[in-house]
């Protein structure tokens, strides 16, 4: 369960990016985060990853008070989350397998477990036959699938995605978002930031619409 309670985020000398935000995403739920550029979508995800600190308020994630989490506990907290980025953030000098395996290595897993779990994750995203390819040899959609495999290989409790279809065309966007929906159906809590209105309408999922640092409609709205 993700719970923003009166969360404010501001940077020194700048306006408030998030202002007394209240938002709840129940465990196992999937929702979309929408809003115009600069509305605070990425900042909200950064707060969830604890890449940024909450200025005021409380942010609870599956019982953990992220807003007061000590630095030394952040890595363990992040290992409970999977994250997908618009620019994939793949390591271009490593093959697909190594990119996905990184998440498991960081979590202290090695050897055969890595082999089997990476293969399984890549099969899930349809890249079972590209395991030893270098990222540069893959299409944009395939690179994003590798990013997704890396995010789900350790079966995280929560999956976050920041504009995962931002660089993809319509049909690829549909495939990628359907993948997220599959993971949601397996019990993962999923929050996807997107500005793709057609996909929002197609998916029919709960939507949190951010504008000027706050929810436009504080209640979850069905599109």
């Amino acid at each position: 369960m993700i719970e923003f309670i009166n969360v404010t985020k501001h940077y020194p000398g700048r306006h408030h990016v998030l202002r007394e935000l209240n938002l709840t995403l129940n465990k196992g739920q999937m929702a979309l985060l929408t809003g115009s550029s600069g509305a605070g979508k990425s900042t909200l995800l950064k707060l969830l990853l604890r890449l940024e600190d909450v200025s005021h308020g409380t942010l609870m994630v599956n019982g953990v008070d992220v807003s007061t989490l000590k630095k030394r506990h952040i890595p363990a907290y992040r290992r409970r989350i999977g994250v997908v980025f618009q620019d994939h953030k793949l390591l271009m000098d490593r093959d697909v397998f190594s990119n996905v395996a990184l998440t498991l290595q960081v979590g202290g897993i090695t050897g055969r477990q890595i082999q089997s779990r990476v293969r399984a994750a890549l099969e899930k995203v349809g890249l079972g036959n590209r395991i030893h390819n270098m990222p540069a040899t893959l299409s944009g959609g395939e690179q994003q699938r590798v990013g997704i495999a890396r995010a789900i290989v350790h079966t995280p409790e929560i999956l976050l995605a920041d504009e995962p279809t931002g660089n993809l065309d319509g049909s690829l966007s549909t495939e990628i978002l359907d993948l997220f929906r599959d993971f949601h159906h397996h019990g993962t809590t999923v929050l996807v930031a997107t500005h793709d209105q057609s996909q929002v309408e197609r998916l029919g999922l709960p939507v949190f619409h951010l504008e000027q640092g706050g929810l436009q409609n504080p209640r979850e709205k069905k599109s």
Partner: protein
Amino acid sequence: MSALQIRWDAARNAVHTLARQPLATLMTILALAIVLALPVGLFAALNNLQQLLGHWRDQAQISLFLHQNATEQDVQQLQKALQGGKGVVNVRYIGKAAALGEFEHNAGMTAAIRILGENPLPASFIVELNPLAQSSAALQTQVNAWAQRPGVASAQSDLHWVARLQAILALGERAVWILAVMLAIGAVLVMGNTIRLHIAQRRDEIDVASLVGATRSFIRRPFLYQGFFQGAVAGILAWIIIAITIALLQEPVDRLAVLYGTQFHLLGLSGLEGLILVGISALLGWLGSRLAVGQHLDHTFS
């Protein structure tokens, strides 16, 4: 995953990273080796100088002249005390008759001595000391104590040169230490800078690892191993450089020694000293890496 497995993976990762850039790795190791070889070479030179001075130990010679009425017991007890003295290399007793014989032989004054009717020369002890066995002040104290013993009339010694020699050696040793500390800092900086370059090259990897939950130690470990390995190899190379230098110098030293009618074998590093050099070098490499990667992680995890 066991802690050993994690470390093994990090070590393998470090070796692969170094092997991927053989020229850069070699240059770093060479730079470190030369930085280390300089102070260690100076230490070896100082060690050889001390060894050389040890060859001249007979120059630290003290003469203890005995009273004419010194008893046999006084002589025996004094001899025992002298032989047990610190840094004493040799004790030689010259009886009255032997002293007279030597005097006659050296000075050619046989006729004058005969006129005196009796042997005026005292018995004496000639004590040869290692000038570096103790400080010149302690040496002087020891000589004074001997001079106070029963049967001793006077002591004759020239310990000023020992004090001067010890002062020069202390100066050399201090200079080498200062140089060693400065070059050790240099070694840390060389390694730190090298690791900073590695960090810059792997910034994306560090950022992604941090995003997926890597701990500081997970990210830091391969860099520390890189520094450690490069430092250790540089230490071995420095050891080899010193050994080659000494081998190259031995021949001219031999020729010089022959001119002085002696032999002198240059000392390199012993096995233990070499291992200490490699250990310190590895430690400096590790320290440089730790400083560089720590600074970066402070920024990444802030």
